[in-house]
């Protein structure tokens, strides 16, 4: 059997926060559980039925008591709500300087791609002390990227991107689970997250064959799929130029505007006619089925590498 822990490791900035909230809730729960169990036990013994025809005096209820045990629980729950909501809100918004990593869930494995081009299956190597942002999607069913030691969990849903982030605080090797039931080998879709000292992380990153960064793979794919024929850099091809596209606001043919984030770029590759740029014909064919989710992520990375437009650089956030 070996050692069996009763409490999970704290390996991210979220862990202590969530654990403090847990201790507060545990305290409240323990108090009320003991209160109820003690009251039942004491009343059951103190007022046990002594004689057969005994008829206790009738008390119908006291409104003051009712208000008391409505207001106090409500007050406590509001504290729990606001405290929990604040953590949730921060957990939902990754910092801007986070290390971007792409994760693709596929029936029964996690395929992870680093910016520098390194690819991993069911293993994630990240540097200590720096926030890491995962942009995730799934190629088939709903999966869920769950690292108990970081106290974070987020679905990877097919057809859209989802985001989770954490900042590791302790080097080590932590469990990675798939927490959304995804079929036959759901319980085998597990792996490890290695949090390494920055020095070791850099060596690890340099090691192994380096086939160039993700953006280079994206550039290669950009050529192979002949995107370059239309999307010329100098903006007088039949299609909009992609230089400086990421982060900018795009005016659409329907008059609306949309922020060119990862989701917009992915949608424009797989369903180009969903949002058509103002002033351009809906001429782009769909690449649904011609490029895998990893390929789309590589193209996104390549388009990002074409530099944010000057406006976005100076703009808010």
């Amino acid at each position, binding site marked *: 059997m070996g050692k069996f822990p009763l409490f999970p490791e704290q390996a991210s900035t979220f862990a202590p926060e969530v654990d403090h909230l847990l201790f507060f809730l545990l305290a409240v729960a323990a108090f009320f559980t003991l209160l109820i169990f003690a009251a039942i036990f004491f009343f059951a013994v103190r007022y046990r039925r002594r004689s057969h025809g005994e008829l206790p005096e009738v008390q119908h209820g006291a409104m003051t008591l009712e208000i008391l045990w409505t207001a106090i629980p409500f007050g406590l729950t509001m504290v729990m709500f606001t405290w929990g909501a604040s953590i949730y809100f921060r957990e*939902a*918004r*990754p910092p801007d300087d986070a290390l971007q990593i792409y994760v693709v869930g596929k029936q029964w494995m996690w395929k992870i791609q680093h910016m520098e081009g390194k690819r991993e299956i069911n293993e994630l190597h990240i540097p200590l002390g720096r926030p890491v942002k995962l*942009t*995730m999607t799934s190629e088939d069913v709903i999966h869920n990227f769950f690292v108990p030691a970081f106290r974070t969990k*987020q*679905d990877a*849903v097919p057809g*859209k*991107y*989802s*985001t989770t982030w954490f900042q590791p605080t302790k080097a080590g090797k932590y469990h990675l689970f798939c927490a959304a039931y995804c079929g036959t080998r759901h319980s085998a879709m597990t792996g490890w997250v290695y949090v390494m000292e920055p020095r070791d992380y850099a060596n690890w990153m340099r090691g192994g064959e380096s086939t160039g960064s993700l953006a280079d793979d994206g550039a290669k794919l950009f050529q192979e799929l002949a995107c370059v024929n239309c999307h010329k850099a100098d903006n007088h091809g039949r299609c909009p130029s992609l230089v400086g596209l990421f982060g900018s606001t795009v005016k659409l043919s329907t008059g609306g505007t949309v*922020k060119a*984030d*990862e*989701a917009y770029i992915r949608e424009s590759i797989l369903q180009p006619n969903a949002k058509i740029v103002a002033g351009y014909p809906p001429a782009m064919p769909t690449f649904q089925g011609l490029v895998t989710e990893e390929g789309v992520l590589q193209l996104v990375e390549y388009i990002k590498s074409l530099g944010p437009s000057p406006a976005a650089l100076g703009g808010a*956030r």
Partner: protein
Amino acid sequence: MTEHIDSTKTYVLVFVALVSLTVLTTAVAFVNLGDFSVVAALAIAVCKMLLVALFFMHVRHSTQLTKLVLAGAMVWLGILILLTLTDFATRGLAGVPGR
């Protein structure tokens, strides 16, 4: 229930109102009201529903309970649609994909 029987004239009048509302809603659909075309269509449909319910289904003479039951259904339909829309309407507001 049976003590109050409406006259045929009432029913025919209500029928005429329903027919005219149908013509109205079809006509309104051809006018560009932007977002309000949905509101107009639903408003007319709700009017027709109330006409059918109050007159044809005798809700007018019914007990308070029947009215409460009908109102309850509308509220629950509202809960189903509006609370789900709290999710669909605010997706992406946080500026983070999937949140």
